[in-house]
């Protein structure tokens, strides 16, 4: 079913699901929503499964003309969405009717907003995922970001009988200051003790070189004990590499799968979604936790995701 005609694509709008897993050994990055929590929430608000494909909207939103009357929801960074110029809320089920125009204002907080449509976006599965990896031209529409004239289609689905809203306590609020937990290693022994202390107790600023591949950070220099290069090793999103310059690089979802810099620490997976909302000039701080603590947080996070569906506030369909 055709749901949107792309009038303006925005700065960088891509189709994403929760990622393309199982192909790292072939050099294929995981990709998927940078803020997977927000995409999951958007899907649940329209009765989709968490891994259905939605739109990831970066900084400047697109302008979309509805081609049919549909139910949808928007989450993530606060971006003042409007239907025919009239403000509509995020984090709840909405309806847009044929020919109405969905537009977005300035990204007021965070960096990425998510839009899920009842049924989920219908593009071919590529290596088990619909996520767009534009550097490798995989997934989404022809492996690229949206452009003017694209038609977005979704799978046919029964309309929701109810509408849903995310309770305030589960809505993340993004400021310009991010605090994430990290587990030290795997190559923490290549850094001096002072360097590790510096890394864990200094704020780092996100530079202009920040995209879906990763963020170059700036702040107190992290010194290596000896050499700064290693023979290439595997990479995963969340890894923090430190090259010769002593300035850390946070690896994100479209990064290459191998790299030759030592990794001082890795951001725990429950905190990675939030970091997907960071933009240039934002500040990041990293707090060390043990692996046991990290796994406790992971269990809590997975429990939250499992129960999120039942936390939604349900009201009769007024749409």
């Amino acid at each position, binding site marked *: 079913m055709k749901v949107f005609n792309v009038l303006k694509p925005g700065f960088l709008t891509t189709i994403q699901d929760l990622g393309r*897993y*199982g*192909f*790292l*050994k*072939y*050099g*294929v990055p995981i990709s998927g929503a940078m803020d997977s929590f927000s995409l999951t929430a958007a899907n649940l608000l329209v009765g989709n499964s968490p891994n259905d494909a939605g739109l990831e909207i970066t900084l400047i939103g697109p302008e979309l003309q509805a081609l049919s009357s549909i139910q949808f929801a928007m989450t993530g960074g606060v971006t003042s969405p409007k239907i025919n110029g009239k403000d509509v809320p995020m984090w709840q089920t909405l309806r847009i009717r044929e020919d109405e125009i969905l537009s977005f204002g300035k990204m007021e907080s965070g960096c990425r907003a998510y839009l899920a449509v009842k049924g989920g976006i219908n593009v071919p599965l*590529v*290596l088990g995922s619909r996520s767009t990896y534009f*550097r*490798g*031209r*995989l997934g989404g529409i022809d492996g690229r970001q949206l452009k003017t004239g694209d038609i977005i289609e979704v799978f046919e689905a029964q309309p929701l009988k109810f509408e849903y809203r995310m309770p305030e306590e589960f809505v993340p609020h993004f400021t310009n200051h991010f605090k994430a937990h*990290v*587990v030290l*290693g*795997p*190559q923490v022994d290549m850094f001096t003790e002072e360097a590790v202390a510096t890394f864990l107790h200094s704020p780092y600023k996100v530079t202009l070189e920040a995209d879906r591949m990763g963020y170059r950070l700036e702040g107190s220099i992290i010194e290596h004990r*000896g050499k700064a290069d*290693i*023979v*290439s*090793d*595997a990479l*995963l999103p*969340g*890894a923090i590499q430190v090259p010769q310059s002593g300035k850390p690089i946070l690896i994100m979802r479209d990064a*290459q*799968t*191998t790299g030759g810099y030592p*990794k001082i620490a*890795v*951001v*725990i*997976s429950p905190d990675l979604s939030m970091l997907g909302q960071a933009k240039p000039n934002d500040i990041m701080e990293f707090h060390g936790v043990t*692996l046991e603590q*990290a*796994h406790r*947080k*992971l*269990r809590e996070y*997975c429990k939250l995701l499992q129960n999120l569906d039942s936390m939604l506030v349900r009201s009769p369909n007024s749409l």
Partner: protein
Amino acid sequence: MKPESHASARYLSFGDTALLIEFGDVISLEVSRKVIALNEAIINAKIQGVEELVPTYRSLLVRYDALKIGYNQLVFRIKGIEMTLKDIRMEKVGRKFTIPVVYGGEYGPDLGYVAQFHGLSEEQVVKIHSEREYRVYMLGFVAGFPYLGEVADEIATPRLETPRLKVPSGSVGIAERQTGIYPCEAPGGWRIIGRTPIKLFNPLQQPPALLASGDTVKFKPISEKEFKNGITAK
């Protein structure tokens, strides 16, 4: 300085979702054999909770689901597997591939530089590059890109000082003692000496990459005409 090939494997946590088993910090056949042997053995062991394995030059990354298997339990299982490998010391022999390459000219713009750098003729560089069997140490950089080694010292050449913004799909390059093939157009700093008509990556096929870690590759010089006819790999 630390020894670059560890006496025994190091088991390191990689965040809350992966275990890294590190064998050394060196490009060597010995380390790579250990990595591939353990990779195969873990696949065969079908450990509940192990989601994905990534072999590299130096290490094997094991992505796991901590809700299904604890870190200590996983380390214990894999150490047990590693012990048995020490006794048997065998490795499944990888597949062998012949990759046709048209060397030089517009297809290999750096062949002249590599020759000059070593005081060789272009023909000698081609002969040296194509007479060796190379091991696929790992795939990375871009989808399907094989890191092959090791190139003979006589033609090992440093990377370009300024990487090219676009290296054509199929380009065969040299970077120090590594050689590799660009599966798609990408930016890159390797010295490009030729090009293959073979497609190394196809996301619509399973597996999507032609080559896998542990395979062996030999290059076969072909003419421009043969390149254009697009020979297929054995």
